[in-house]
């Protein structure tokens, strides 16, 4: 279910490494909890973030949820397609529904995140 090439946070963000950069989105579990997403609040490129800092928010019909940056870094791009089609997060959370691209400050921080198998175990724990 959860791709092996991604890293996962306890707050249900995922991260994909691409050289010195990272693509970040919310997990399939997170999008299912939110339901139909209708609005995504995106940061300005250039914004510098610490790990766990709010990068934006995702709003569904019923609720709103902050998105936290899994690692420290600078926003180099945002997924502007989400302004027109926020439901990309529901349809393809780990792919076309990506939210931001960061220039990573310290790659070692990635080691604090979970691999797919660990994240799946973490989710099982939440359901009990």
């Amino acid at each position, binding site marked *: 279910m959860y791709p092996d090439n991604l890293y996962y946070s306890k707050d249900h963000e995922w991260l994909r490494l691409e050289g010195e950069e990272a693509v970040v989105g919310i997990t399939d579990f997170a999008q299912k909890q939110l339901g*139909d997403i209708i*609005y995504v609040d995106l940061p300005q490129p250039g914004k510098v973030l610490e790990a766990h800092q709010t990068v934006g928010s995702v709003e569904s*019909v*019923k609720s709103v949820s902050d998105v936290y940056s899994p690692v420290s870094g600078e926003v180099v791009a945002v997924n502007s397609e989400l302004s027109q089609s926020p439901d990309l997060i529901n349809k393809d959370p780990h792919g076309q529904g990506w939210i931001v691209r960061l220039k990573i400050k310290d790659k070692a921080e990635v080691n604090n995140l979970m691999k797919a198998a660990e994240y799946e175990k973490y989710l099982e724990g939440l359901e009990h």
Partner: protein
Amino acid sequence: MKKTRLNAVHKEAGARMVEFAGFEMPVEYKGIIDEHLAVRTRAGLFDVSHMGEIIVEGPEALACVQYLTPNDAGKLGPGQVQYTALTTPEGTFVDDMLVYCLSVPDKYLLVVNAANTDKDYAWVKEKSEPFQVFVVNRSDEHSQLALQGPLAQEILQPLTELDLGQMKSFTFAFGKVAGIECLVSRTGYTGEDGFEIYTLAENPEVIWKAIMAEGGPKGLLPVGLGARDTLRLEAKLMLYGNDISDRTTVLEADLKWIVKFQKGDFLGRAILEKQLQEGLKRKLVGFEMVDKGIARPHYPVFAGGRQVSEVCSGTFAPYVKKAIGLVYLPVELTEIGTEFEIGVRDRKLKARVIPTPFYKREKK
């Protein structure tokens, strides 16, 4: 946590379940937007078995209901339904509800909100003491399904001997649906045409499955509490606890049409009459967001630089495709077009008073 008799059916259908008013209920199946639009354009099927059913029976049942409610139950003949409220002596809400006239003047069914059933039952029992009536809480024995949407009649008709074409809005009849004895009323909580189907049978899943089989090919979807809330808000139907409570009067809630002073005495009458004469200080109005963002319940509301209220109901409305809501505002701010601000997380966003209901179906 209580379960309705349809619990297994929801889980089989892949519903996401949540706790609501002490019941494990489906909040959504396919998604709130799809379910909402299905009800507006085709049809949706809801399990609302959590609702409360209280029966008032006895020679003074009508007199008792008249005393407990502001609307005129004396206008009801057998087979008629009325939207009304249980009012406090302060003219505020114990609950809002439907009254079904089973027999004049001796038998009435009150259909109340799930979260209030026990409170309402205790209230009705206490306040009915001076009257020759029995009050019985039959909530646990009842299951209730709601079939709502423009195709509701077409889907239900093949499953019942009742002539639905003859059944007017806010009337009901007893008859079989899918072979099971039911009370079928032409009522609902969505702003669409449709039916609410009550049964005492132990196997209401037979009805559910028959309706889904009949309606599925026509685009009928099962609908959860999530879309039930967005549908009722678009139609400006009240939600107890959000829009009305024991701190808001019937007149402040803009429900003067259910207050019939000429019928005689009822709980809260004196205060409501006084409020009508003196004029309201605040009133419930509908708003839309002007700035991009969505107002949610309890978000603070500002005017002239100070907080004047908080949001009652607020959501994104899938059919009218706007962020809408309801709020009590000082009367001087209630004119259509008046702008005010809502604190949405860390920002103050502009909103505007607009006419309600936000959605009104076109009459055929």
